[in-house]
């Protein structure tokens, strides 16, 4: 069993597969050091889960659909909310996570935006560290093998049988390429829209999994759905720019102000105000900034000082520290923030057992689509990774119980890919990868950003092809050991393949829904039918698309009809 990635989805998959059958030969491949890569570790707020008597799976399910504007895959959303309860309990009782408690000793759950019940389990405001540290230790305990600083470049195929055989992997420390073959492969490298001017994920994230899946011909869905988190820190010129101040701040009652001192959320959403969902708040802030009511750094201000210095320091120690490093003081003064590219709701089409349509290929976590529809609720992200990582480990163990055949990779494919990826090494003239990446970030920010428009999206689709052509001419130093520029180039190519999908898909959704806002189509069109946009890679590298109606299996939005069944 080959697991690409080492965030929560990948680790839970490996642990669950091992516990189902300790004889499985499991290998985790991560481009970072063990347990250090990915976004799961960076989770601040927490994990949405139904634990309280007063809460119910039905409520969590409906919150998830409302947040996702009803284009979620309902089977996936149902699995998420139901299995989250078991998953979080196993994380406490088997893996040893210890989440914050109420004074009576039971698990504390806090308020998050878009939820009808306070159901977010957390550890302070740095929940991801607890989850990933504890699960990484469990990987050690089971002796599951980890190849660290190895980067997967592409999935490999058995051409005759149309099965995935494993992956072409690069050893970052030496630059050597190797073929890793397995009877079953999981892609769980995580998304992370780092192809934007401001982004929340760490800069090592580069959409590797999504790009690999696209190139492997896997069907993808809703790639236009890119969530912008409303409160990314502004530190001009620093790589830290875009890093988050967590959602719980707004949950706890922090205010947002424009440069005229107006608490503008009262105007955009008088009812929920700052506690509206991320798409609404991000769009409101963006409109304020674009209308010239932003601060000099290009953002708005979040103010938590009225909650009390002690309250902020006690409940948000990580955020307080993060702001102080850059000379701000969250506990006492407003901090300048901007919407920041944060999460991809779209991804590979999978079923609730994380299976794709291609034999032996599984996808979990942010690389998979469908769960969150048009907008993800804060706290549903780490829940998604953990729940579907767990689903995937169990499903892969079941699959491997009956079939441990390892098909043979197509040797021509391997050679072709190796030549392709080595091509820029030692080239003496051509563009520098980082320059192209910066151009792509600006392109996405302006033309495939928070508010989109038809013509700009059409231009973006052409410009990304031009950038791709330039990227194929880029120059990279020839030494292969720990060659970070080569890594930047590989990331750039993946970001470009991703933008091919997102820009095309965004041009086809002629409405405003959730995270996808169109200035030329400002209305949400429930009446004309709810649909998902599916795509796969065409011969020329550009996506071939198809719209299909959403299966409203368990619930429909109030604007359409009564639910078919409870």
């Amino acid at each position, binding site marked *: 069993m080959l697991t690409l990635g080492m965030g929560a989805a990948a680790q839970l998959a490996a642990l669950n597969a091992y516990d189902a059958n300790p004889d499985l030969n499991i290998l985790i491949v991560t481009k970072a050091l063990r347990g250090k890569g990915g976004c799961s570790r960076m989770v601040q707020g927490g994990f949405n889960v139904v634990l309280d008597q007063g809460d119910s799976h039905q409520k969590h399910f409906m919150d998830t659909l409302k947040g996702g504007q009803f284009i979620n895959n309902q089977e996936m959303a149902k699995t998420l909310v139901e299995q989250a309860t078991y998953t979080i309990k196993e994380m406490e*009782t088997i893996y040893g996570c210890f989440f914050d408690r109420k004074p009576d000793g039971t698990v504390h759950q806090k308020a998050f935006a878009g939820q009808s019940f306070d159901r977010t389990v957390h550890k302070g405001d740095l929940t991801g560290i*607890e989850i990933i540290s504890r699960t990484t230790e469990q990987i050690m305990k*089971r002796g599951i093998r980890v190849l660290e600083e190895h980067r997967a470049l592409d999935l490999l195929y058995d051409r005759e049988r149309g099965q995935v055989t494993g992956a072409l992997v690069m050893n970052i420390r030496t630059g050597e390429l190797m073929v890793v073959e397995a009877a079953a492969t999981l892609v769980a490298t995580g998304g992370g829209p780092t192809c934007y001017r401001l982004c929340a994920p760490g800069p090592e994230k580069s959409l590797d999994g999504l790009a690999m899946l696209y190139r492997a011909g896997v069907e993808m869905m809703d790639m236009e759905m890119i969530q912008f988190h409303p409160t990314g820190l502004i530190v001009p010129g620093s790589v830290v720019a875009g890093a988050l101040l967590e959602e719980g701040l707004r949950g706890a009652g922090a205010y947002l102000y424009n440069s005229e001192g107006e608490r503008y959320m009262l105007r955009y959403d008088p009812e929920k105000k700052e506690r509206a969902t991320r798409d609404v708040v991000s769009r409101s802030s963006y409109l304020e900034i674009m209308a010239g009511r932003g601060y000099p750094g290009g953002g708005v201000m979040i103010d938590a000082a009225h909650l009390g210095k002690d309250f902020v320091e006690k409940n948000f120690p990580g955020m307080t520290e993060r702001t102080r490093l850059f000379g701000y003081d969250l506990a006492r003064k407003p901090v300048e923030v901007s919407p920041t590219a944060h999460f991809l709701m779209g991804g590979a089409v999978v079923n609730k057992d994380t299976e794709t349509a291609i034999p032996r290929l599984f996808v979990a976590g942010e690389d998979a689509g469908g769960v969150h529809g048009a907008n993800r609720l804060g706290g549903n992200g780490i829940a998604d990774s953990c729940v579907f990582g767990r689903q995937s480990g169990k499903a892969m163990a079941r699959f491997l119980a009956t079939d441990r055949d390892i098909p043979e990779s197509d040797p021509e494919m391997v050679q072709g890919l190796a030549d392709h990826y080595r091509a820029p090494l030692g080239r003496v003239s051509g563009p520098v990868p980082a320059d192209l990446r910066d151009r792509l970030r600006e392109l996405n920010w302006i033309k495939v950003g928070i508010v989109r428009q038809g013509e700009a999206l059409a231009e973006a689709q052409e410009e990304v092809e031009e950038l791709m052509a330039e990227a194929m001419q880029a120059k990279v*130093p020839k030494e292969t050991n*720990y*060659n970070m520029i080569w890594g930047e180039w590989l990331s750039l190519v993946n970001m470009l393949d991703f933008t091919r999908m997102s820009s095309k898909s965004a041009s086809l959704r002629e409405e405003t829904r959730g995270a996808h806002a169109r200035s030329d189509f400002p209305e949400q069109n429930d009446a004309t039918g709810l649909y998902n946009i599916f795509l796969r890679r065409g011969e020329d590298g550009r996506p071939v698309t198809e719209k299909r109606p959403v299966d409203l299996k368990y619930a429909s939005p109030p604007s359409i009809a009564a639910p078919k069944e409870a």
Partner: protein
Amino acid sequence: MAETKGGKKTFKVFRYDPAKGGEGHFDTFDLEIEDYYATTILDVLFRIQREHDQSLSFRYACRVAMCGSCGMVINGKEGLACKTVVADLKTPEITLRPLNHFPIVKDLTVDMEPFFKKYEEAMPYFDPAEEASEPAIVRPDTWERKAIDMATDCIACGCCVSSCTMAFWHKDYLGPAALNRSMTLLADSRDGLHDERLATAMESCYNCRLEFNCTEVCPKEISPTRAIKYIHRMAISQGPGLAQRLSPAPEPVALPAPEPLTPEMSRRRFLGRSAVSLGVVAGAALVGLVSVSALSAAFKKPECKWVSLGPLEKLTAAPGEVLTIYADYSLEDGFYKRQEHKPVLVEMDREKNKVTAFNSRCTHLGCTVHWDQQKKLFLCACHGGTFFPDGTVKSGPPPRPLDRYETKVSGGQLYVLEA
């Protein structure tokens, strides 16, 4: 924000490429920095790489002090590049080096394998004391939770190990990060590996010389020193009983006998076995397969090695005399492969045809114990610990008898199992 926003700074960056060999050197780069407060060392490295030298290698991931990938030595002190802003560093010239002790992969990038090896030896993983389907009820104001507090926020960046003067030099010392994690589990009432974990931590915790370097440098403001003191206290209250529970001394083995002799159980082996059987018993009580299989995999870890003490016929001793024989062998610990030259105390009982080999390491703080032929006692010069000829404690601070080696005779040579 302060008055001076920015200006020119010089950065001296360590460069080393193992492929090219040599000793490594520093390259100097001048940068004009607009705002010292808004520029992290990680930003500086990206700029040097982009504007001056593409071949520079460093490591990063999250850039917000949550992953622990960018630990390095900044102006002589360990820290995270992403969490150190230029304004924190008052010198006109700023020096950047890789973490101490670790093998260098390239430039500022080190191989963290020795760190993880020591960390894993501390058994850093939770093992449920009993099967539970619901999270335990633990009030946040209980002593255990206060003791654990934020110490579980460790991000394994390696800064503490780099700053420690003992972790690198002492092969048995697990180091601050590993012991800090050990403490958080020892204090956790939900954990089921308490005794085994404490035994491992106790072997190690007295090697800390309380210099507080780790506490000083920890980017997450954790104090491993506090954790180690906590283990000291636990060792005093639970240590002696623990040794008896976990370590029945192996019987001496018969002298020239059919070979190989049935290996006796060494202390470390016993730990492994007891923990596995613990899993099996628990398994019967419906803990499920998880803990059993997981533990058996984990306890394969410690590497043992048979070391020859030379031909048996040459080991002659008067009745009641203990021989001191130097064992020479190489061993690999977290950081190094090194040559050992270590006295082994061998007691021959020709009448009963038995040989017993004691580890000369004092069970108190690891000094070397010697045999006093007049007094017929083992003595430790450091803190006055004394042991009877059978290895049990006569007086002084040692918490348990001298450790005994597992022995065998093969090809006329006497071997001890060095673990």
